[in-house]
């Protein structure tokens, strides 16, 4: 039998939404657990930087959580059933029972395929930012940041701070569209200030709006990229690192396993919640990016709202609902301004790998209309990432949605799986 702990409120994901939820729940005197698979709390937007630490707001929230919350960092949720999560941490596994569960599972980057995207030196844009914060040596490296959305600017600013030589920021959205969005920013003063600060940090960095990286070249590692403008004219830029990401998509795997209703979010899915952050499953709440990409502010507010509601005091959340809605409206405007141009979904060639785990090229997936059939015939989606990368790609490319998930949520040790069949209901054999 595994060790079993019990929390009155258990929060999954220690980004802003999860930290807010955990801190508020702790003010009710509840026993609160805060789970995250990363070694330190903060999530992605508040990720600790080995050289520069974490932002002040993050440090404050983390210090507050450390005082009243049991921090379970470096812990991976591998399975879930009603009222219990199974966690793997270090070499151990344990069960975390809970009365209320708040899912703050965040988002991952939308990483779209193009020729050369598997070369060492090519990574996500937020991915390259995260790696730089982890201590990846980027000083003096020639770096291009590409894809779409404001994350590119934040990533570029971090890379510059770490000494990278920024060759440019490549935004797929047309220049006119980006400028129109920028002109409307006065309605969101805090955002406008943030944008101006980023502009200042990125002074002198070439901007390629309406451009797309269409290929990465190199033998065993990246040597250069092919850049295409809106008219289809191409040029080559030599570089050492390319960070390329096309926005974010919600992490809904745990919510889905728990039976929470999902709803469409572009080509992807998000957890369906009501105004009080309640999912369709009693006692399970979802906040932040898991409910659709909304950014730091809405994640924080939703974490606070969910914690008040979970602790039986919804009236204390009432005043926050309008602020939350306003933050969500900003995110909607942002999504519209950086909507993907059709050409970014057509970059992959027939021999471009789609499933990076099992090395399955696009051409091998022609003719399939569902994930299961494609998986059985090609092994697409059967590798270590469990289709997290290629599943999102195929959904975005309009091929077919990612197949239904089943436990374990992440690759787990045999001992964990053995204990799982012992004390959990058998997950059974599902297609």
């Amino acid at each position, binding site marked *: 039998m595994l060790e079993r702990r019990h929390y009155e409120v258990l929060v999954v994901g220690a980004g802003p939404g999860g930290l807010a939820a955990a801190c508020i729940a702790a003010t009710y005197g509840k026993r609160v657990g805060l789970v995250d*698979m*990363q*070694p330190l709390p903060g999530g*992605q937007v508040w990720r*600790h930087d*080995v*050289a520069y630490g974490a932002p002040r707001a993050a440090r404050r929230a983390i210090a507050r959580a450390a005082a009243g919350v049991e921090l379970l960092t*470096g812990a991976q949720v591998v399975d879930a059933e009603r009222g219990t999560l199974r966690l793997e941490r270090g*070499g151990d596994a344990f069960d975390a029972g809970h009365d209320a569960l708040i899912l703050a599972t965040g988002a*991952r*980057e939308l*990483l779209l395929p193009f020729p050369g995207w*598997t*070369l*060492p*030196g*090519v*990574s*996500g844009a*937020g*991915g*390259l*930012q*995260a*790696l730089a914060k*982890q*201590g*990846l*040596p980027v000083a003096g490296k020639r770096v291009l940041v590409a894809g779409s959305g404001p994350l590119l600017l934040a990533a570029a600013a971090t890379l510059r701070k770490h000494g990278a030589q920024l060759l440019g920021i490549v935004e797929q959205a047309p220049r006119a569209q980006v400028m129109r969005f920028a002109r409307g920013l006065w309605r969101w003063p805090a955002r406008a200030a943030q944008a101006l600060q980023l502009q200042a940090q990125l002074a002198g960095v070439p901007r390629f709006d309406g451009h797309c990286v269409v290929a990465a070249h190199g033998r*065993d*590692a990246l040597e250069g990229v092919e850049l295409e403008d809106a008219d289809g004219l191409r040029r080559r830029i030599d570089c050492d690192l390319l960070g390329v990401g096309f926005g974010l998509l919600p992490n809904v795997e745990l919510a889905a396993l728990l039976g929470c209703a999902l709803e469409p979010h572009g080509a992807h899915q998000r957890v369906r919640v009501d105004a009080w952050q309640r999912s369709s499953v009693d006692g399970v709440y979802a906040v932040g990016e898991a409910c659709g990409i909304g950014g730091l502010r809405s994640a924080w507010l939703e974490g606070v709202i969910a914690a008040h509601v979970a602790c039986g005091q919804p009236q204390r959340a009432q005043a926050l609902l309008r602020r939350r809605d306003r933050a969500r409206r900003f995110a909607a405007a942002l999504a519209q301004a950086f909507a993907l141009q059709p050409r970014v979904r057509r970059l992959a060639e027939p021999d471009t790998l789609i499933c*990076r*785990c*099992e*090395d399955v090229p696009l051409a091998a997936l022609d003719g399939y209309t569902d994930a299961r059939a494609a998986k059985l015939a090609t092994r697409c989606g059967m*590798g*270590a*990432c469990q289709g*997290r*990368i290629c599943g999102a790609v195929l959904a975005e490319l309009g091929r077919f949605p990612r197949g239904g998930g089943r436990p374990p949520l992440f*690759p787990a040790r045999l001992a964990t799986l053995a204990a799982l069949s012992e004390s959990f209901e058998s997950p059974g054999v599902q297609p």
Partner: protein
Amino acid sequence: MNRVTLRIDGTPLQVDAGTSVAAAVAYVRSGPRRSCSGQPRAPFCGMGVCFECRVRIDGVAQQRACLAVVREGMEVVTDA
């Protein structure tokens, strides 16, 4: 800043405390990991989702290097 010494594919390396194994691996010339069809691969998502950075750490295979922080005396094998 505190420094930590680890070994990557047998080569001693000193990096700042708090550095991830994925970042530390970038300092050495060995590796990168080969995919199932033999292509070179390196860390991609940086946040524990894509598994491209997986390495063997102190004898335990299939560890995501981007989620692991370096420890004194750690033994990392990049293509195992």
